[in-house]
């Protein structure tokens, strides 16, 4: 599975649950992989591995939406530093073809710059 495939899968799972989704949303010189909106707006960085790098980007995204997540394909052998992620206020989504779960909820903020601009 490539990162693009993983992103496609997660988009499908989100849409199946009623989320409005926009992909590759420009933010500064980077792009947020997914901006999704249901009752609140989430920014999601999808990675196959190298979760720490994704967490750094999710940390920067976190001030532009209600919640910011790193999304990773389910892998029981992966070790995440939950304390580090909590410190950043970044949440973690794990997903596979059957669905997705928030294994670590992201800190909620009262801002939604990206959601408003994307009209999602």
């Amino acid at each position, binding site marked *: 599975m490539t990162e693009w495939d993983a992103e496609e899968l997660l988009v499908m799972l989100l849409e199946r649950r009623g989320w409005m989704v926009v992909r590759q949303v420009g933010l500064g010189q980077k792009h947020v992989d997914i901006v999704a909106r249901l009752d609140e707006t989430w920014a999601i960085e999808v990675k196959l591995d190298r979760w720490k790098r994704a967490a750094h980007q999710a940390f920067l995204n976190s001030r532009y939406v209600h919640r910011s997540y790193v999304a990773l394909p389910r892998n029981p052998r992966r070790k995440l530093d939950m304390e580090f992620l909590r*410190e950043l206020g970044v949440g973690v989504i794990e997903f596979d073809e059957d669905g997705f779960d928030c294994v670590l909820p992201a800190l909620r903020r009262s801002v939604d710059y990206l959601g408003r601009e994307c009209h999602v």
Partner: protein
Amino acid sequence: MSEGRAPIDNLLRLGLFRDRPVFEAAQQLFGPIVVPAHIAAHSPDGLWGFMKGVGPKPFFFDPMTYWLWLPPKFWLRGSEAARGPDLPMPVDGGQIRPAFAKLLDAYGLLDAATHEGDAQFRSLALERLPSACLDFQRRGIVPKTTKAVSKYAAILGIDVDDEGFTPSRLVAPYRPLDGAAALADQRTLNLTTLDAIDPTEEVWAVVALDSARIFRSLDANQLSELALDRFAGIGLWVGGLDEHHASADDLRRYRALVRSIGRPVWLMFAGYFGVLLSYDGVCEVSHGVFYTESKQLQGPVGSGPPADRYYIRALHRFYEPTRAFQILELIPEFECTCPECPDLGTLRAASVAARTDSIRRMDWIQRLQRHFLGSRRREIEAAAALPLEDLLQELTDAKAQVDAVPRSLRSATGLEADHLGRWLDALR
């Protein structure tokens, strides 16, 4: 101003005519404008309109003559050409970048570039440049055509007139100092220039060398061969020296070079470290509205749209805006209080809005540029008003504040203040 020190000023280097609104809005925030001569040669009407629009502001030319000593591949159209194989001279005139061809023509060297071999061309350049370069500068900025005058006057909503602009100083032609022969050439250029000027004219010389070179061989004796003491001041360009990445040793050598010049020094491409060298003889630093705080002597010429960059004054450097705003949230003491920066929320909203259309993006870029110019001005004013010890203490305090941020958050934002540590080492 601190006792016994010349005043320090920041000069703004013209890069693009479309920066005019920023030059105009921020004209109290910088000193004279530095106009690269190739822009003047290529677009005299546009330059006149630009200067008219900016309003009353002194200017002078960077004669850009170092180009003539670069390998001809750097003269060609398309910056990618500079990465290709070198070209023999003479060069096909159609291949030369239009602005550079105009400059060669203005200096009476286009024919030589397209018909002569390398040695003959350089010899003619040495012979012709001093008078041609000075004459070009003395002509100033002249409105070329009635049509152009009317066009720009209409755009700017001003009365039609034919007033030109005279440079506030002349700058002697210069070449990269990349060896003994180069020193001899520069000496010839300087002495011939001195012979060609009127005693009433203010003329500056330029010392341009690659950063690696100042660390090897250039010493005070060699500088004395250049007759620098007979010029009003000296422009110094240490190619490739990036204040934010240079080692403390390299910065110390840079500082020693500034001190050894013994004349007022204009750092042609510099940032805040250059401002701090005002205690060593620097009286002017120049840079673009958003860029060219450092520049390589030899490199491809080209530009794209300006990247979004936010200047954090306490750290004296630019960051990508989302990163910068996160850093400011981590260290609120670093937040800016200028009119462009009401609060982080407003800045974040504006940065997001800017991605949706080109007009809002241009507004955003100009806002970032005005913020930078205001920040630079405050740096200049602080450097002029405070003793060096106070400024070093500010750097020490800023570094301590950065170091106090938890490592995980620092790594997540790419926040570090190593450059401040190196500056402190070099300045103490």
